[in-house]
């Protein structure tokens, strides 16, 4: 794999940015760190979501399901295995689950996929409660020494891995195939690309990442029970943030996560009863005003600037 000069420069810049972000816990140990954890979490989730849903235009609402599974992996294993292995295990399980879901639904049209994922979190939640019920096990207590800063660094690391993976996929044959699929699936199929396989492989990425994110965050929740671990609203928030930023670029979702987190924060503080309303309005803004997110807006502006220069 050959690296151009720009590539090296971008990699160095990215590494530098991550290093700066990693310093946050030393600056503040309270509110801003907490916000940092939220931003890191959603950046990881939204970027991995966009890796799949960006090129394929399949809106996945399965994030909450994978996330919940991840929290359960930690919840069940915290007394048996070391933390880092639980995160890896969660990633594995998330990938397998995503593969199953993908094999079942990705051959069908996008709409069926959306509907299936809409209820997936609920389905997994019910299956887990059924298992819990029949084994007599109740909510899980995750009492660890992992503090906020530790969780932040884990998430930052995970985000870094996601960005790296996204960058690599973009340069690989899989990425190329997916771009063709996204533009015109019929053409892709006729060009000899195994569209179903490509989609399933790619879907495993957000599945694994969401599960790992859940595993990392379990210690923060302390008490894992199905209705809290599988909160469907998470899936919607991830979709909004990724689309707001723009799912066509790797750094697009990041641009959506940051303002939206602050917006939600401002709304939760000042209009505590209206958060649901705000989320609804955000969806409408995306659809009517920013169909390609901020990235798309930026592209439009740049395009206009360029054409003005050219003329």
């Amino acid at each position: 794999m050959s690296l151009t000069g720009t590539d090296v420069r971008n990699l160095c810049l990215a590494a530098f940015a991550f290093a700066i972000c990693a310093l946050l816990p030393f600056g503040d140990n309270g509110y801003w760190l907490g916000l940092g954890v939220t931003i890191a979490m959603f950046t990881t989730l939204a970027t991995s979501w966009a890796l799949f849903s960006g090129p394929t235009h399949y809106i996945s609402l399965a994030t909450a399901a994978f996330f919940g599974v991840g929290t359960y992996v930690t919840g069940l294993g915290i007394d048996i295995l070391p933390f880092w292995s639980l995160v890896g295990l969660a990633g594995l399980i998330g990938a397998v689950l995503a593969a199953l879901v993908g094999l079942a639904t990705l051959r069908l049209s996008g709409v069926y996929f959306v509907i299936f994922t809409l209820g997936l979190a609920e389905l997994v939640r019910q299956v887990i409660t059924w298992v819990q019920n029949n084994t007599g096990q109740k909510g899980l207590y995750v009492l660890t020494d992992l503090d906020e800063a530790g969780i932040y660094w884990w998430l930052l690391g995970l985000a870094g891995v996601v960005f790296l993976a996204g960058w690599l996929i973009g340069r690989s044959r899989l990425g190329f195939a997916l771009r063709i699929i996204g533009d015109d699936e019929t053409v892709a199929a006729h060009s000899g690309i195994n569209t179903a396989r490509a989609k399933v492989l790619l879907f495993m990425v957000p599945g694994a990442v969401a599960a790992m994110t859940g595993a990392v965050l379990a210690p923060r929740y302390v008490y894992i029970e199905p209705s809290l671990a599988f909160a469907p609203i998470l899936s919607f928030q991830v979709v909004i943030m990724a689309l707001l930023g723009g799912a066509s670029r790797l750094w697009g979702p990041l641009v959506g996560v940051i303002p939206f987190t602050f917006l939600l924060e401002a709304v939760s503080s000042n209009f505590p009863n209206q958060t649901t309303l705000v989320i609804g309005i955000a969806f409408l803004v995306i659809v009517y005003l920013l169909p390609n997110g901020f990235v798309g807006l930026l592209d439009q502006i740049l395009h206009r600037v360029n054409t003005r220069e050219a003329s």
Partner: protein
Amino acid sequence: MDILITGILLGGTYALIAMGLNLQYGVARIMNLANGEILVAGGYFAFIAYTAAQLSPILTIFLVAPVAFVLNWLIYRVMLQPLVNRAKNRGQLETDSILSTFGLSFIGVGLMLSFFGGDYFSYSFMAVPVELLGNTYGANRVLSFVMAVLICGALYIWLNRSRSGLSIRAIATAPASARLVGIDVKNLSALAFALGGAVTAVGGALISTYLTLDASTGVVFTLKALIIVIMGGVGDVRGTIIAALLLGILETVVASLLDPGLTLAAAYVMFLGILLFRPQGLFGKKPT
């Protein structure tokens, strides 16, 4: 036998929930994810009418239907028509309408919360036993089933025997061709969407007689409606009814004989099973 009848009654409920969505998705091509909120709103209407004015839900539905019709018609014209106009292909319209109706659904929940609060609401209407073939059932469920039969029957007759119904079915089957034969696709789509909303709201009013609802429960109904519409085949009323009945019976069977904790799993298995072997649904047309 008892299980069968309970399942059929439940299926009637589900048919109501899904019928409205079928009109909206099949004809207007809008995957309306705010469907559940319209249903809950219909339920709130009936609740308020019953507790504040002692108005029987049977009468309330005559108020609910026109209000919901107008509201949904406005929603289509103002919010969804621009998306239809802007969409270059069907896939994009679906994505846009999904996102847009998500937004609507959250706004709907948010508005209902502002007006009514997060509390559960329920009331007892006709919660008396009715004997059918040796077993007892709630009269309110039986009534809801009867109304579902009437409404679905009326819709079926209208769609299959009237000229406007024929136009609607034409749009559902082949929108481009429908335009070519002079059918006013835009107006009829709006009409279908509005009608679908009215049916859903009426369904909500009837369901509120025996289920406990609150502002946030809409999404469960949306999910079930979606499953039924797709299982039954988009655009065909018969398919929706059959799929709804099947789902009701399956859920009751699983709940009684296996475990009530597996009903959603069973629904999903059925959903997937039908889709894998017959992707267009039970009564749908194979895509060309």
